[in-house]
């Protein structure tokens, strides 16, 4: 019947509570180690991590390799558990948070870290704890930007960086007489116009307006570059002119500049990748290094390169505020240690292992994801990866608040509700304003609740 979601949660809570009682006798004792090597003989560390759909076999192999290394180092076993979707992950975290038991180490997406932090279910690392994972300075400083609300309170330990960049088709750019990729959004639109030939089905930009994430990332980037951080203290600034301008630019590619395939109103990011891969687009917006395997097997293999996305807001001539550091949202994975864990030292020892330079480079080689380890990041020499590594240094964290989930949803919702207008060829200004106003009031309400708790 209709009570499904709440009932499910409650059922989960109940089951978890039952399980807790059942397992009461088998809880392991606290790790007795004090500094130095951790003795984990006979113990098992539980790690929850996302399933890698692109490289499932490699992931299994990596997990068994790392488990062997960990056993050699500490004598303890590592048991990996995977989740298939963000939703699975959330359910798993909720269950564990409510019942106070579950995996010791979690892997979290960066934008989800503030929400997880807000539950207070994860360890905020002390200086001592940071030493146990190899010291704070072993990490790329930019990657620490979304580990906690400030540098004194950080729960997320960076594991990999997945910054967003744009890919461009070298042949199409050259044919249009463009020497180097755009560095401002205005220039990007100009270049895109030169490359667009709707008759031949070629367009300057490939991007998906129906994607579940991309739209808000554009709006966030353009707003931040115009000097509006979106969240200022406990005030939401979504009704700011910079935000409206960002939406107008983003929608304008389709309605005014006509540099995007009209079908893109129904596209997700993967459709955009496919369009770019077939050689029909000059730029592929909002992509990551994970597009390399697809593109290397496509018609544009050897003809494409990456570049950081523009950092100058639409209508401006140079980046405002810290806009030049907002080439991408700070994206990647953090690992966190559960507060209820009985073997935190063992968990830290595991994180120390997987964030070491060698392991990070190894991981990059297998999965293509950038190291969060500063030394490992600096040692990358592949020229194709250079712009991506650049973007990792020029990534800016989205506002660290438990309300971010709602704000992100509000930003995305403005696009979703505008798609019918986009299809008609123009987004009515007053309609856009009323959608922004709606998003502003909902987001502000969410921020108010965050401030109260």
């Amino acid at each position, binding site marked *: 019947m*209709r009570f499904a979601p709440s009932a499910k949660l409650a059922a989960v809570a109940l089951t978890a509570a039952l399980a807790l009682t059942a397992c009461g006798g088998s809880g392991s004792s606290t790790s007795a180690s004090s500094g130095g090597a951790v003795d984990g003989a006979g113990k098992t560390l539980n790690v929850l991590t996302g399933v890698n759909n692109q490289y499932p076999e490699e992931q299994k192999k990596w997990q068994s390799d790392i488990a062997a290394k960990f056993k050699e180092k500490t004598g303890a076993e590592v048991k990996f558990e995977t989740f298939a979707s963000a939703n699975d992950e959330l359910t798993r975290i909720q269950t564990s948070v*409510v019942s106070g038991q579950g995996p010791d180490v979690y892997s979290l997406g960066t934008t989800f870290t503030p929400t997880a932090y807000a539950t207070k279910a994860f360890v905020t690392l002390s200086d001592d704890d940071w030493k146990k994972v190899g010291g704070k300075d072993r990490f790329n400083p930019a990657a620490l930007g979304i580990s906690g609300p400030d540098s004194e309170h950080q729960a997320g330990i960076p594991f990999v960086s997945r910054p967003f960049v744009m890919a461009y088709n070298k042949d199409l750019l050259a044919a249009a007489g463009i020497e180097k990729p755009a560095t401002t959004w205005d220039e990007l639109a100009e270049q895109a116009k030169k490359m667009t030939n709707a008759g031949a089905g070629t367009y300057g930009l490939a991007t998906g307006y129906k994607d579940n994430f991309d739209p808000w990332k554009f709006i966030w980037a353009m707003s931040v570059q115009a000097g509006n951080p979106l969240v200022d203290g406990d005030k939401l600034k979504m009704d700011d002119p910079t935000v409206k301008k960002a939406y107008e630019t983003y929608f304008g590619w389709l309605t005014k500049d006509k540099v995007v395939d009209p079908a893109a*109103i129904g596209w997700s990011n993967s459709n955009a990748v496919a369009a770019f891969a077939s050689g029909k687009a000059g730029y592929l917006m909002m992509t990551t290094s994970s597009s390399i395997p697809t593109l290397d097997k496509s018609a544009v293999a050897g003809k494409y390169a990456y570049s950081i996305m523009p950092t100058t807001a639409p209508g401006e001539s140079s980046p405002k505020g810290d806009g030049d550091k907002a080439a991408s949202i700070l994206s990647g994975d953090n690992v966190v240690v559960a507060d209820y864990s009985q073997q935190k030292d063992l968990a830290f020892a595991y994180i120390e292992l997987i964030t070491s330079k060698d392991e990070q480079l190894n991981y990059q080689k297998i999965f293509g994801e950038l190291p969060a380890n500063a030394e490992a990041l600096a040692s990358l020499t592949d020229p194709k990866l250079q712009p991506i590594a650049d973007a990792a240094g020029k990534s800016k964290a989205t506002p660290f608040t438990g309300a971010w989930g709602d704000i992100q949803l509000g930003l995305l919702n403005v696009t*979703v509700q505008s798609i019918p207008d986009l299809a008609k060829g123009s987004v009515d200004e007053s309609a856009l304003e009323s959608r922004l106003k709606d998003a502003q009031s909902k987001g502000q309400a969410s921020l108010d609740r965050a401030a109260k708790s």
Partner: protein
Amino acid sequence: MSTDSFREMKPVSGPAAHGQLARSGPPEPALDAGASPTTGTGALQPAGGGRKPVRRKGLSERNRPLWMLIPGGVLMFVIIVVPLFLGIYMSALNLDQYSLRKWVSAPFIGVENFVEALTNSPLLHSVWLSVSYSLIAMLVTLPLGIAAAVATQNAFKGRALVRSIFLIPYVLPSFVVATVWRTMFQPDGVVNSALNVFGIDGGLWLNGPQTYWTLILVQIWASWPFIYLLALSGLQSVDHEVHEASALDGALWWNKLRYVVFPYLKGPLALAFLIGMLHHINNFTLPFVLFGVPAPADVEVLPILTYVTSFQSFRFGLSAAMAFVSLVLIAIPLFIYLRAVKLDDAETPGGKK
């Protein structure tokens, strides 16, 4: 058989008679009245002269293995009743990501969640969308399902094949159905290409006002075999003699269908209507996969709204309140309907066989 006359008797004490009647076990041979409880009540009256007004259990009620309810009952209790009450309790808490960890001690805010759900959330709009879409889909699927059942009632060559094909939409997982339709409904997808051939601009199916009709269309496609199945089972229960009798009376096919066959379908179809409506209203997979989250405002149906409130905004308390309000809203017409069709009471005298 009726035991009603017992209720009308005046209570007169009599330990022996009392004991005999209260027990519904094997009758004692000495008392012939007890030996024939089903032969009519008239014979009993003089024998006892007056008995306790104990309702005599009917033949089909005797020795019911009620203990068989225990396994199902325990599961129901653990999986439905307990969470339901937890859900109601949660709806009175200010439960969100900030208070989840210690959820039992989350601030108690009484009816605030309900006030917010009713006055400051799209809940009522969602209820309207859910109910209206379910009803429209149901009203279209009913004739479709009945027609298909009637058409495949009599044997013809290839009937088994047709019947199997009819069931395909029903056996496909919702997720698959929604994914395939989503692909077909893309702005440059096959649906619009096909419409273009006839010079019709299909427009947007997955965004904007048209989404409401998209949802209804896909729901119809996915759920009409359910009506078909139940209508078919109703048709199978029509006795052969009835067909013969109506043929002898000279009824033509429409009259036969209208006055002879359809009455038989009333029971199964009422059940199908009820289950189908609940199923549509609760359908989460279809809108979620078709339109994604956040959904276009025209298809923000109840399950999507509660999902977003719970798992995107993390307002567990508010979402529980929403779920409870919608449960009540749906339970009212359901209750009236159940009373009207007496679906739950197969033994009512005069009820359909």
